[in-house]
């Protein structure tokens, strides 16, 4: 009996000793990170911009692997199957852990993941063409109210936050507008430029060039704060709506990854996004907002938006699970 207790104590002591040892040593080999989108997009370039700084902090290479598909679900389902040893994590956009699991059956449960941190969030602008007769969102809404079912807006896909945010607005104002899904933000912008839809809600990067050359007219910022690109365009909140569109990029570990590894990657991300270089590149060239959330805040934000977006999904009839 006594021997057992001694043995147990020893084991425990050894185990406790091993834990901090893991924290001190980790990482001892390269860390693999999945990127849930194809190479060459805003997210991809952002992630590749911060990777060298993360490597500098971790002292080991970070291998980025692009696993596109199913709005990021392919990357997360691969992550779900990976070893939770702290050497594989995935970048994920907020919809992949909030809306997509509510729209279709997936092989992972987003509640199980270990949320590491979120380095930035995206910004969204609601545009019409420069020669459109509306100069404010109110005028646009008034027109849409008079012409139910005849006003269409472009989105990068059904069930994306871009679609849901406009759907929320339409519901709130009692408008009947047609959401038209295009293959990605650039195509949705092109449809506005060509006059095939009246408006679009797009992330900033896709619209920068067309906006700067005067082909698009911003009516409202759908994200929380005004953005440097269009400093004079008011946000939805300033117009009196109690709503803004939110989606962020974050990093997650597979279920069961030790806290020590999570902490280390969180710190690496924090280190990377506090670099002046990164901040400058993100804001001036990629048009996204650096907004660091640690693991706890990120998890809370995720839970909060799981409900918010879920509610809107239900209103538009896309919620299945």
């Amino acid at each position, binding site marked *: 009996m006594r021997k057992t207790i001694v043995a147990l104590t020893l084991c425990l002591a050894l185990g406790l000793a091993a834990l901090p040892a893991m924290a001190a040593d980790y990482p001892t080999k390269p860390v693999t990170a999945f990127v849930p989108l194809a190479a060459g997009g805003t997210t991809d370039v952002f992630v590749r911009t911060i990777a060298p700084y993360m490597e500098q902090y971790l002292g080991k290479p970070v291998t980025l692997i692009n696993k*596109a598909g199913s709005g990021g679900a392919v990357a997360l389902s691969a992550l779900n199957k990976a070893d939770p040893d702290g050497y594989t994590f995935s970048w994920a956009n907020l919809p992949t852990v909030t809306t997509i699991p509510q729209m279709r*059956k997936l092989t992972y449960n987003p509640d199980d993941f270990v949320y590491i941190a979120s380095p930035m969030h995206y910004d969204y602008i609601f545009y019409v063409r420069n020669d459109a007769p509306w100069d404010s969102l109110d005028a646009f809404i008034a027109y849409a109210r008079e012409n139910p079912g005849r006003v269409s807006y472009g989105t990068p896909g059904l069930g994306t936050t871009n679609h849901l945010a406009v759907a929320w607005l339409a519901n709130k104002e009692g408008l009947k507008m047609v959401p038209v899904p295009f293959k990605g933000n650039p195509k949705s912008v092109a449809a506005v430029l060509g006059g095939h839809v009246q408006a679009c809600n797009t992330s900033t990067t896709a619209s920068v060039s067309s906006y*700067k*050359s005067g082909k698009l007219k911003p009516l409202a910022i759908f994200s929380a704060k005004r953005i440097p690109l269009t400093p004079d365009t008011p946000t939805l909140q300033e117009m009196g709506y109690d709503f803004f569109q939110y989606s962020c990029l974050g990093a997650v570990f597979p279920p069961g990854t030790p806290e020590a590894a999570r902490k280390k990657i969180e710190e690496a991300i924090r280190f990377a996004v506090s670099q002046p270089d990164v901040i400058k590149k993100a804001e001036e060239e990629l048009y996204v907002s650096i907004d660091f959330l640690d693991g706890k805040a990120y998890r809370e934000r995720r839970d909060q938006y799981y409900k918010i977006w879920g509610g809107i999904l239900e209103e538009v009839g896309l919620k299945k699970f």
Partner: protein
Amino acid sequence: MGDIFINLWQGTIYAFSPINLLAIVIGYAIGVIAGAIPGVMAVTAMVLILPFTFTLEPLFAIALLMGAYKGGAYAGSITATLVNIPGTPEAAATALDSYPMSQRGEQQRALELALWASVIGGTISNLLLIFTAPPLAEVALLLGPAEIAALILFSLTAVITLLGDSLLDIWKGFISITLGLMLAVIGLDNMSATRRYVFGFEDLDSGVPFVLCIIALLALSEVFIQCERVRQLHIEQGFKGVKPIPYTWPQRWKDFKFCLKDLIRSSFLGSLLGALPGIGATTTAFVCYGEARRSAKKDNRFGQGDPRGIAAPEAGNNAVAASSLIPLVTLGIPGSVAAAVMYGAFMIQGMIPGPMLMQERPEVIYGLFVLLVLTDFIGAFMVALPFIYVVRRLLRRLDFSLFFPGVMACCVVGVYSEEFNVFHLRLFFILGVLGYLMRKNGFSIPPFILAFILGPILERNTRTALLIGGGSLEVFYTSKVAMILLILAVASLVWALWRKARGAESAGGLAVPEEFKH
């Protein structure tokens, strides 16, 4: 117009440096090697080298990628010619005539024809990009979902020329088309974000990747078919059986004159189709091939090694390379996968391509144009010609028993590195077996591929048009362009079928080539 020349001059000053020319040569070499390896796409190579451009000079990085893109656009035809395995999807149409030609021993002729057609198509398209990009982009913007749907339908009728002659072959061709359309249905229905034929695999949500599908149907199935010929292969032992026929200068000139009309037609057609998002080089090559065949006289030798059957698709698919950049530089909208990679390359350098970049930093865009024009010539003379010389030498004592397994490994690496998904390897195998069964039973693959690529665009645009139009078909006849295209589509369908019906009686030369029949 004058502005363009001033800008071009400034672009030349900005871009013309030995370092950038070196970038073109390196890039072109990477593209040629990746393109020539069956299954590995030039775009894959571009994606893999993209992260390394963070540390490079802007124009060096872009010239490198540009070179890889152009090199890959040509190099797919090398293996298509020599072993009937297209190195890239866009060379699938070239194989229809270049493989029979090389089987006769005229390998040098087939390879050079493809190369010079590529250079001509590429150059014409480069010039169109430089001088007509803005208006062309405006036109492309004005084409709405209804017009695009009608245009795709029109392009699909080019398939008809690829069908066989007997009634049996025609029905089988239509079955191939329908199967291609059906395979493309797999995945999320974009219009409602719900699943179709996914069977619970989220890996299928984004559909069957098109590169994977084409490599499986053309390359993997070809290896399976070659396996049946093992005994024969040993008798042939490489190409020792067929004596190589040299390609003389008078013959080059004769071929040039003979193909000139098709070269010019394909170059312009390729440039136009390339400027429209989504159609892509593979479809364009088939459409150009179909048009060349449609306009040829009755006694043509298409499918048996007609030089026009090489010149037309190669000029067409290389014309796409430059013109698919038109929406990118003028509107900031990437129209193809390769253009999306270029978009990323610009973004890495801190520039967002589009009308603004054209106004703010014209020297960058025009510098790029200058490099683009140079790429075709530098690449062809400094990289492609020596490369095909080496490949031909190597192939003469090739051990097929090692070559085909090697090809399979390359295909697998290529398929995997598209999206790094092991599920795709399984899909690759299944489609390879499907392709083998189809070919063994006389269902031709090109119509299947064309339908597979165009089907989703057709469905999506038709449904978008209906959605915007509130569910009525009105949009299709109120738009003049759509209406004209639809009438043209129906007319060309009827005309092609009528010609087929008459050709069937006289047993004309419009047969499906043997390699695709089996």
